[in-house]
C-alpha cells in the first residue's frame, strides 16, 4: 500500500504547469484515492471526528482570543461579562470551545480504545501509535492550560495542584515550580504564559497530526480483522467511500455536541469555576475535568507525593511502551477472547478510577458500611478502590499483556480480510465468518 501509485492526471495546462513546480493537487488527489481496507467499521470514523474536533477548537479558540484579556483582574470579567454577555454569539462560541474540549477527549478515548482492541499499535504501526500518544499528551497539556484561562476558582486551584506536581522532584522541585509560575504561587505571570502556550500548542498538535497521517499512509490502515491487506480488491479508495462515511459519523457526533452546547452548556463544568479565583481559599471539593479523573485517582491512591507523581506519569507511559509489551502474533482482539476479557476489565478499572477521582478523598464506596482498616484506610474507601484499580491498570500492561500473548490460544484468524467480507453485505464486517487458522 505504501507503493500506492499516483493516478492523478493533470487535465488542464495550468494543472500541468503547477504539477511540475508544486504538485500539490497531485498530493491531495493521492490522499483522496488512498486505498483503504473495505471492512473498516464505525469505530474507525473517530479519526475523522477528531480532525473535525481539532478544527472546531482552533477556529473558536482564535475568535475567543480576540475578546479575551489575560490579566489577573480582567480574565474572569472578559470571559463572564464580555464573551458570555456582550460579544455577539460569544456564549455560543465559548460553549462550542468549552464543550468541544470534552467532545475532543470523548472522541480521542474511543479512538484509543479502538486502537487497543484491534491491535492497531503493533508492527509495522508503532510509530503511528507513538505519534498518537504524543498528540494525546499535547491535548492534555493544552486542555489543562485552557481550563486555567477563565480564572475561576477551579481554574486557579487546578493550576496550583497540577503545577505543584512538579515540586515533587527532589532538589529541582522548588526552582522548577518557581520557573513554571513566574512567582511564589500561581499568579498573573502564570496566567499569561499559559495563554501564550494554549494558543501555540494546538498548532503543534496539528503538526503532529500531519505526521500521524503520514505514518498512517506508509503501512496503510489496520482493520478489524488485523489481517494485512493482500490485494487491491481488499481496498476501496478513501474518497468517496470513507469521506462520506466519516461525514455521516461527524454529523451524528455533532448532534451529541449540540445537545451539550445548547441545552446543558455547564453540565460538564464545575460550579466553582463561576466564582473568580481566590488565592486564599480552596474550594471545598476540587476535582479536575472528567477526562483527567482516572489519572487524578492514581495520583491520590498513593500516600507518597513523589511516587504518586511518578505513577501518574507511568500510567501515561504504559501507552507509549505498549507496542513492545504485547507479545501476541495476533493483532485483533476479535480472535483473542481471553485478552478481550482482560481488556474489558481494564476499561471497568479505568471507569472505576474515573469515579474515584471525582469522590471526596476519604469517602466511602458504599455509604454507611464500615469494613476493616488496611494501611491507614478503610477497605471500603475510595482510596482502596482506586488502589486496587490502579494495580490492575498497571498489571494489565506489565503482566497480563506480555504473558497472555505467550500462553493464550487464539481463535482461527482469517486468511484475508476479504474472506469475511465476501459473505456479508459491503461494509459490514464480522469476525463470525473467520476462515480456519492457517498459521503453520
Amino acid at each position, binding site marked *: 500500500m505504501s*507503493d500506492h501509485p499516483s493516478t492523478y492526471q493533470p487535465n488542464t495546462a495550468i494543472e500541468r504547469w503547477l504539477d511540475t513546480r508544486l504538485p500539490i493537487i497531485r498530493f491531495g488527489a493521492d490522499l483522496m484515492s488512498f486505498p483503504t481496507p473495505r471492512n473498516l467499521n464505525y469505530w474507525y470514523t473517530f479519526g475523522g471526528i477528531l480532525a473535525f474536533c481539532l478544527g472546531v477548537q482552533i477556529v473558536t479558540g482564535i475568535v475567543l482570543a480576540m475578546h479575551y484579556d489575560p490579566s489577573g483582574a480582567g480574565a474572569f470579567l472578559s470571559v463572564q461579562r464580555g464573551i458570555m454577555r456582550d460579544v455577539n454569539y460569544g456564549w455560543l462560541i465559548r460553549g462550542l470551545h468549552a464543550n468541544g474540549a470534552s467532545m475532543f477527549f470523548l472522541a480521542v478515548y474511543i479512538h484509543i480504545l479502538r486502537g487497543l482492541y484491534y491491535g492497531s499499535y503493533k508492527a509495522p504501526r508503532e510509530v503511528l501509535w507513538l505519534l498518537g500518544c504524543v498528540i494525546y499528551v499535547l491535548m492534555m497539556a493544552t486542555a489543562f492550560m485552557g481550563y486555567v484561562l477563565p480564572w475561576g476558582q477551579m481554574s486557579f486551584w487546578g493550576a496550583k495542584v497540577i503545577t*505543584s506536581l512538579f*515540586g515533587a522532584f527532589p532538589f529541582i522541585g522548588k526552582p522548577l515550580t518557581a*520557573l513554571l*509560575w513566574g*512567582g511564589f*504561587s500561581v*499568579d498573573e505571570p502564570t496566567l499569561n504564559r499559559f495563554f501564550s502556550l494554549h494558543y501555540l500548542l494546538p498548532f503543534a498538535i496539528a503538526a503532529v497530526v500531519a505526521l500521524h497521517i503520514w505514518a498512517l499512509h506508509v503501512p496503510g490502515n489496520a482493520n478489524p480483522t488485523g489481517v494485512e491487506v493482500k490485494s487491491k480488491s481488499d481496498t476501496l479508495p478513501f474518497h468517496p467511500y470513507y469521506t462520506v462515511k466519516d461525514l455521516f459519523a461527524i454529523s451524528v457526533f455533532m448532534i451529541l455536541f449540540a445537545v451539550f452546547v445548547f441545552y446543558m452548556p455547564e453540565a460538564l463544568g464545575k460550579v466553582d469555576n463561576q466564582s473568580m479565583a481566590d*488565592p486564599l481559599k480552596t474550594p471545598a471539593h476540587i476535582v479536575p475535568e472528567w477526562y483527567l479523573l482516572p489519572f487524578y485517582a492514581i495520583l491520590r491512591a498513593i500516600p507518597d507525593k513523589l511516587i504518586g507523581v511518578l505513577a501518574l506519569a507511568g500510567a501515561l507511559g504504559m501507552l507509549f511502551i505498549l507496542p513492545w509489551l504485547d507479545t501476541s502474533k495476533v493483532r485483533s482482539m476479535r480472535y483473542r477472547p481471553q485478552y478481550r476479557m482482560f481488556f474489558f476489565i481494564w476499561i471497568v478499572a479505568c471507569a472505576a478510577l474515573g469515579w474515584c477521582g471525582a469522590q471526596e478523598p476519604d469517602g466511602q464506596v458504599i455509604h454507611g458500611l464500615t469494613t476493616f482498616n488496611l494501611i491507614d484506610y478503610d477497605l471500603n474507601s475510595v*482510596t482502596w478502590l482506586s488502589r486496587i484499580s490502579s494495580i490492575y491498570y498497571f498489571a494489565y500492561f506489565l503482566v497480563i499483556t506480555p504473558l497472555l500473548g505467550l500462553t493464550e490460544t487464539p481463535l482461527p484468524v482469517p486468511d484475508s480480510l476479504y474472506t469475511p467480507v465476501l459473505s456479508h453485505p459491503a461494509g459490514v464486517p464480522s469476525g463470525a465468518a473467520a476462515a480456519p487458522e492457517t498459521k503453520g
Partner: protein
Amino acid sequence: MVRGLYRARISFKVADSLAHSAPVADGSADPSRRDFIHIAAAAATLGGVAAVAWPLIDELNPAADTLALASLEYDVSKVALGQQVTISWRKQPVFIRHRTPAEIAKAKADDHVTADMKDPEPDANRVKAGHEEWLIVLASCTHLGCVPVFAQGDYGGWLCPCHGSQYDTSARIRKGPAPKNLEVPEYAFLSDTKVKIG
C-alpha cells in the same frame, strides 16, 4: 516501486557529492586540521544557541517586581483566641492562628510520637518562644498547594480538601500524601501584638 527508484537516485547523488566535492571545497590535504575547523564551527554554533536559550528560559523565573514584594506587618491582637486569619503575603496565603491552651498542650504532647510523623519537629521549633499561642505558617498544603481547612481531620488541626492530608495543632503532617509540615515563614514579633512576616 516509483518511490523506491527515486530514493535510490537521491542516495546515489548524495554519495557522489560527498565523494567528490568535499576535498575540493576544503582545499586542504591535512585531515586533522580539516576536522578541527568543523568541530570548532559546531561548538561555536552550539555555544551561541545555548547563550540565546538561557535568557529565554530565565525570563520564566519570577520577575523583579514579583521578587520586590515587601515584608508584611500584621496586628495579631485582632485575632481572637481559638480563631485564625488567612492573610496574603507575597501572594501566598498565610495562617495566623491564635491557639488555645488545649491546642498548645496537644501539640507539645505529640512532640514525642515522632514515629507517627513524616517530618518530626518539636512544637517549640515551630513557634517563637514566649509567643506559643501564635502559630504562623504558610497556608499551602505541602502536597499540591491547596489551602487546608481547620477543625477537620483526626488530629485537631487542618485537613486539606484536595487529597486529605491531615495536620495537627502545630501544623505538622500526620496523615496523607503531603511530605512536609506546613512551612513556617521567616517572621519576628516587633512587639507583643505586632508581627513582621518576611
